[in-house]
Every structure is written in C-alpha cells, then in structure tokens.
C-alpha cells in the first residue's frame, strides 16, 4: 500500500469509490505510518486510534449505502487548537495539557459530517504563537525534508504530517502566516481563507480579528474540496460572514488567460533569499506562460505590517488569554495562598516564554497612557495597509510573491531572538491585517528544501486563487516532490 502514502484525497476518493480500498484499510495504513515515523518528527501529539477506526467503519457503511460524499472515508488530522469533544485539546500548552473539551469546534463538526476520519491532533507552537513549532510544550516538530530544521509554524505539526505522508488532509489556523509559512517550509499546499469565511467557534482564540482556519493538503484540488466542507455562516461566531459558499471544486475548471497578477516590489526586498527569489520568478513565468499577465504593484506599508501586527495580535491575545486563571479550566497551581497567588502562579507556570512575552506586550499596548500611541495607532495603520491592498486590486486580480523570505531554518537558529523570528512572516502578516485570502503552494526546491509561492486574493475570492493554483499544479510537479523519511517502514 506504499503508493497511498502520498496520494491526494481526490485520488484516494477514486480508489474508495471503486472499492479497491476501504476506509478502514486506509486509516490503518495512515496510523501505521504515523507510528513508524513520527518519533523522528513529533508532528502528532494525540493519536485517536479507536475513534478513527470506528469513524472509518462508519464511512465504509455510508459508502456502501450510496451516501458517500467526496471526503467520506478520507483520513484527516486536526491542529490541536480545534476543540474536539472528549479528546484532549492542548494548544500545545502546559496550560491546557489536561483540557478535554465538552464540545466540537464547528470546523470539526462540519468535516465529520462530510465523513472524514480524524486520526489525531497535531503539534503546534504554543497558543499558535511562533513560526517554528519550537514553542510547543511537547517539544519541537521537525521538518521531514531535514530533521535538523524546523517545519515552520504555528501549524508546523500539520504541515510536517502532510509532507511526511501521514494523512492527505489537515486543518490549520493562520493569524499572521501560520498556515502559509509552514506549508511553504514543508512543501505542501495551505490556504488561509478570507476573515469570516470559516467559523472560529471552538478554535482556541489567539487574536480574534485575525484568526482564520483553513485546509492544509497535498494539492490545490484537495484544498478546494476541503474548504467547501469547512466554510459557511455560523451563528455561533458573530464574525462569521453571511456570504454564499460556492462549490470550490467545480470552480477549479477553466484557464487563467488574461488574469492580472500583481507583483509587489516590497515582496522582493533585501531579506528575500536570492535562490528563493529565482524559484518565485520561475513560478511567475509559468503562470505567465498559462496566459496570466504580470503587473507591477506597490504595497508601500508591507514593512510597517510587522509593527502593526505585533501590537494588534498581542493586544487581542492578552485579552483572550485572560480567561486562563486557574479557576474554570486549565492548569491550576498547587496550594494557592490567595486568589492573586492562584492567578499569578497558575498563569506563570502554565504559559511558556513566548506566550508570556506577547501577553506582556499586549497588556502594555492596551494600558492607560499607552493605548493611543500603540493600539489605536496600530489600528489606524491597519486601515492604511488594507487600503494599499484595495488600491493594488484596482490594477490586478490576484497578487503573487514568496510565502516566506527563506527555506526552513535550523532548530535553535532563531529561538533566542524574537525579532528574527517575527521576520519570518513579513510577507504574510499584512494579508491577515487586511482580512484577505492567501495561499501557499510548492514552487520547487532550493538545496533540497521546499519554497512556497504565495497567492493573495480579493476578499471572499478564494476561487480565483484556487483556479490559478490548480492551473499551476497541472503545469508543474513541484507539489509532487516528497521527502525521504529514514527510520521504520510503514
């Protein structure tokens, strides 16, 4: 069954429909592969073997009854930020090491209704704060392309697992690049939808005006299929958008002749590795050869996006994370002297260093005397950044550039310097600030390590991104590159 390891969900669905494999066999195959190889990667922190096999059997019965959809019986991993009823949901934090949610996130429910089989939960940066997966309470995830390197973050466990052939699909979340940057560094496809497209209900909150969940897959076609199942209005999330949900798979058909692709010069600035830049230019040439028209555009406040993000995201995080007080759920310190001692020790013991740093920055930015200079100012610059994109989209239909300034870096290289780590997301942060959809797709290898091409669309126009990405993946084979895993044999 070795050929199944790197098959796309669409290919597996064909095999399931033909009866040449059952969902149970497929699930067993994935579980065996995770057990054989994940010791090296640490990408899956909770395996749900019994539940997965039961779900696989239910999927097989559903298919036998003629009621299967395109995702029925397809194995999937959830980032450990999605609440799963009865299954520990830790956000890779000591704070939630013991937290078993009493309900499912809307995304989890929707994918279950579609018939996917949840194999387990993936490792991540603690509370999604990080770009390397090194801030996880459960230890870092390693990149399957080179286990001395990071997979990116914060959805690094999801990206590494897809790249390693553990499952064809995973969920991720993206607050400043946390789907796109690890997708780039692990050589997979990752889509951050428009803000409001996917319900945030049951996703452990980081920065509520920026957070979005999206698909992480081996192909754009799979991302389209998975996104169709994930999105839609949810009255349980007051920011969920009331917009029609197209069949994104049906919308993949067609060409990109005449599609205007904006190239922001700020995305090719000095911090971009020159070999990565060459791969991006080659990918743009491929899109041009398919009939797209490249247009120079200007996103003048790209760099101020970093400062804007590192005020707004920590400020919202400091408010969201105030709920962890050792009282209702999560870590509680031993023998508290009084209520303040209970709060302070539970929080200081339960949160890791980066999370505490962001809570401090956010608290400071919101505190009396500094609110106008930091939080309000950042919200004003946020609008200016959003208007830069609106102006750019008068001249183009999508925007393209790199997803990250470099290929995967070595573990420990940036861990001691938060500002170096924050630069990882220089090309992705602004997209969250403006609430736009963004996608990273593989664009080749530099020294054996994957490079990601980022495509950015107008609000609620994921379809054009997906079509352009699909055209690209029909023309090129970059998304079919796979790492060689050493160690056990599945």
């Amino acid at each position, binding site marked *: 069954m070795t050929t199944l390891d790197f098959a796309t969900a669409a290919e597996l669905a064909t095999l399931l429909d033909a009866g040449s494999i059952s969902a149970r066999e497929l699930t067993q195959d994935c579980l065996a592969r995770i057990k054989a190889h994940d010791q090296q990667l640490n990408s899956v922190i909770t395996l749900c073997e019994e539940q997965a096999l039961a779900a696989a059997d239910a999927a097989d019965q559903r298919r036998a009854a003629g009621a299967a959809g395109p995702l029925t019986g397809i194995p999937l991993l959830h980032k450990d930020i999605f609440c799963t009823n009865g299954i520990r949901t830790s956000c890779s934090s000591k704070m939630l090491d013991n937290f078993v949610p009493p309900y499912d996130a809307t995304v989890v429910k929707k994918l279950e209704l579609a018939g996917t089989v949840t194999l387990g939960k993936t490792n991540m940066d603690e509370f999604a704060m990080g770009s390397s997966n090194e801030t996880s309470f459960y230890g870092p995830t390693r990149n399957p392309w080179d286990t001395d390197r990071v997979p990116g973050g914060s959805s690094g466990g999801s990206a590494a697992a897809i790249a390693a052939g553990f499952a064809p699909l995973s969920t991720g979340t993206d607050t400043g690049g946390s789907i796109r940057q690890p997708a780039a560094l692990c050589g997979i496809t990752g889509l951050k939808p428009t803000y409001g497209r996917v319900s945030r209900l049951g996703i452990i909150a980081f920065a509520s005006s920026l957070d979005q969940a999206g698909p992480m897959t081996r192909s754009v076609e799979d991302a389209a299929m998975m996104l169709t199942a994930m999105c839609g209005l949810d009255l349980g999330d007051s920011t969920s958008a009331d917009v029609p949900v197209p069949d994104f798979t049906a919308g993949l058909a067609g060409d990109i002749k005449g599609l205007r692709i904006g190239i922001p010069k700020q995305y090719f600035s000095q911090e971009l590795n020159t070999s990565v830049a060459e791969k991006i230019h080659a990918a743009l040439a491929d899109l041009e050869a398919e009939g797209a028209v490249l247009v120079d555009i200007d996103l003048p406040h790209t760099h101020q996006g970093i*400062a804007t993000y590192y005020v707004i995201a920590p400020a919202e995080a*400091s408010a969201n994370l105030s709920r962890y007080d050792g*009282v209702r759920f999560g870590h509680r310190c031993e023998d508290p002297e009084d*209520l303040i001692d209970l709060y302070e020790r539970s929080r200081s013991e339960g949160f890791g260093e980066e999370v505490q740093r962001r809570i401090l920055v956010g608290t400071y930015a919101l505190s009396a005397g500094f609110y106008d200079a*930091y939080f309000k100012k950042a919200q004003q*610059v946020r609008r*200016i950044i959003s208007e830069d994109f609106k102006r750019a989209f008068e001249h183009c239909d999508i925007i393209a550039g790199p997803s990250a300034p470099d290929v995967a870096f070595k573990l420990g290289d940036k861990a001691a310097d938060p500002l170096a780590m924050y630069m990882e997301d220089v090309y992705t942060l602004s997209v969250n600030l403006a609430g736009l959809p963004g996608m990273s797709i593989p664009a080749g290898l530099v020294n054996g390590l994957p490079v990601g091409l980022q495509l950015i669309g107008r609000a609620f126009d994921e379809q054009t991104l997906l079509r352009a990405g699909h055209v690209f993946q029909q023309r090129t084979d970059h998304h079919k590159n796979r790492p060689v895993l050493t160690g056990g044999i599945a």
Partner: protein
Amino acid sequence: MTVTPADVVQVAQLARLRIHETALNDVTDRFGRILDMVAELQKVDTAGVEPMSNPHDMEQRLRPDQVTETDERAALQAPAPATENGYFLVPRVID
C-alpha cells in the same frame, strides 16, 4: 524608548503574571527591543484615519433574544480544577 525592569514588573502585575527575578533583565531587554521595533508605527501619518478593528468593517451581529441552550453545567464544569455543588472553588476571598 527605554523600559526599566520596574516597568515590566508593573505590566506583569496588570497581566497577572509573575516574572522570576533571575529572568527579569532578559525579559526587560527583549520587551524593550519589541517596543523599539513597533515604534516604527510612529513614522506613519495617520491623521484622520479611522481605526480598523474588523477587516471588513463588519457590524456586530445580534441574535434574537430567545433561549437556545439547555442546561449543560455538569459537562461544562467537568474540566474545572475544583468545583462543589455546581460552583467553581477558589481560595477564600473574604475572611
């Protein structure tokens, strides 16, 4: 702009975090460097620009004022560290 360890201690109190004395200088240094980085915002002219709190400028949606939830207290309290008779237990607040 310079922040002092005393500033950091004060912010930590507001955030209900306790910073080890041994870590205070490192925390202050990194905190200060982040503030220096975000100071770049001050270079942007924002006169007359409306702050943006939602990327689509969405209005808060209100739901009809109807009961939709059933009593799930037991399930919702199950993850709590300490409860009794349906209450969350905390250290004594009033002597």
